[in-house]
């Protein structure tokens, strides 16, 4: 982890910002993955052409 952090470009504040943005993106991706996978378990029971 430390080695990965050290390999990031730019000064320390920029690297911290990169990590912060990457974590936020991972969280959003995680959320959408959960929502998508949740629809496989139970989509809400709606009947219609898009289901």
């Amino acid at each position, binding site marked *: 982890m430390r080695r990965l952090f050290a390999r990031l470009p730019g000064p320390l504040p920029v690297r911290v910002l990169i990590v912060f943005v990457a974590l936020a993106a991972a969280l959003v991706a995680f959320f959408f993955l959960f929502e998508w996978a949740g629809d496989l*378990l*139970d989509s809400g029971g709606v*009947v219609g052409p898009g289901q």
Partner: protein
Amino acid sequence: MTRTLKATGWIMIGLGVLILVFLGYQLVGTNFLTARSQDLAQQTIEDHFVAAQEEIEVVDTLPPPTVEPGTPEGPLPEDEPPVVHYSEPIPEAGLAFGVMTIPRIDTELVLFEGVDRATLKKGPGHMPWTALPGQPGNAVVSGHRTTYGAPFFDLDLLEPGDEISVETALGIHTYVVRDALIVAPTAVEVTDPKRGAWLTLTTCNPKFSARERLIISAELVDGPNFAYALAEKEFVPADAS
């Protein structure tokens, strides 16, 4: 080689944890979100009823039905007054508008207007393009089967003859289950309008899968619009040949 194996092991452990977190969130965590929404809605539903009751209107009248429900066939007295169709205001999207009780599965649920993802997280939702519960036509209500409070988890236990009641601003509407069927998720015909007044409940089937839909079809047997729905079912306009 050892390093690759070690990395693969960690990735597998990570994926396993991810799947466990996912299942825990879906099957347990989401229940808390829905329970909170239901509790909040229970507290405000009475206010909705009071506000909506001021907008209840008589929108139509019909000659009374010729057959009294539940009795042997026979004409009613000729001086019977016409039956009345009461309407209530269409609820705003996402808001609570009624309470559904299903005694057979010991369930009481606040109903919300809409079947979008956000609304169904709060509880069962009414398809806005169908009749409202208690109104003539086919009122369709959809709900989650296994996640977000699993409001329709035991819907498969309902049998013909079981009662479902829905309280709205207009009053209490009592339905009786007539049919249960399993259809494809695209079987939009189950939402088609029908003569009389019907309540159609839809949910995922089987449990823990969205592969099919379980449909419960119930007919109105009591409530403010019952006589009108019955009259409408058998009414033939004078100019019809």
